[in-house]
């Protein structure tokens, strides 16, 4: 079964984000008003081949986040797992994975 895992890594709340601040300033320079805050993170896509269920795939990817993809001191992560549309499998909807933002937010406070 072909899975697509989508990982979003964001700076933890309360951690200074110099990149976000720089982008916010640049948007203001471009004339956009009313932007209260900008935080810049990373988006990672993983395509996996495994017979495991969606829940197991999610756990595996969350493990990858804890071990490499996110730095728990300054980052938190969200994981979404769905059948890989590129592999010809019908998109989520009836599937167990779902495309809604998940409860798998990682990075509990140290």
């Amino acid at each position, binding site marked *: 079964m072909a899975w697509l895992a989508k990982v979003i890594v964001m700076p933890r709340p309360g*951690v*200074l984000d*110099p*990149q976000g601040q*720089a982008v916010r300033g640049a948007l203001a320079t471009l004339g956009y008003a009313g932007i209260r805050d900008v935080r810049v993170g*990373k988006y990672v896509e993983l395509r996996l081949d495994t017979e495991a269920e969606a829940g197991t795939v999610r756990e595996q990817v969350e493990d990858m986040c804890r*071990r*490499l*993809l996110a*730095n728990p*001191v*300054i980052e938190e992560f969200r994981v979404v797992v769905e059948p890989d549309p590129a592999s010809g499998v019908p998109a989520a909807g009836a599937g167990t994975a779902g495309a809604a933002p998940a409860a798998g937010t990682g990075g509990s406070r*140290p």
Partner: protein
Amino acid sequence: MRFGVVVFPGSNCDLDAHHALGAVLGQPVRYVWHRETDLHDLDCVILPGGFSYGDYLRAGAIAARSPVMDAVGRFAEAGGLVIGICNGFQILLEAGLLPGAMQPNADLLFHCEFVHVRVENPATPFTRLCRSGQVLRLAIAHAEGNYYAPPEALQGLEERGGVVFRYCTPEGEVLPEANPNGSVANVAGVINEAGNVLGMMPHPERCAEEVLGSADGRFILESLLAGRTGR
């Protein structure tokens, strides 16, 4: 003292470290390829500066998961001396051998310049030859030197004397204007609880000869020679 300079793909201050230790200080020194796992012939391991793995994902993140880092962890656990310089400091943080994390410099600029640091803790193998409060003029070259530790971790670090160097004015005053990257509490270098693993953003190995603009780095490098920890 037998030194090993670890080389990761993208390290670029390995030659400087080798030169400072071997040619300038006359010490036995060899390179350690990042896939090696046998460090038994060494007394001190250097993780040099550079852009290991292009700083991909996070600076030092991928290097920290190299095979050699397991060996460095065991080496440190057995009491061996480890010094991480710049990217090496980032790698030690990512490997969990030192507390905290690095963020982009507050002004988002790459700072390549001389700075001054104050020796906060002269009772380490890396600062034995220094006085408390001594000011060293050292070179920095980094875009991610903004050291961060969560408040509790920082408090613990401060209380046990874990902050070894702080950015300061030439007169030794720890002020915000002397901080090139926004690091919390002007932290420039920290040491682990056991006192044998040091991480610092400035480059002592690039400041070991007057012709390069400062030889103050020798205070740190020669401190290592002044006495071995029990190993």
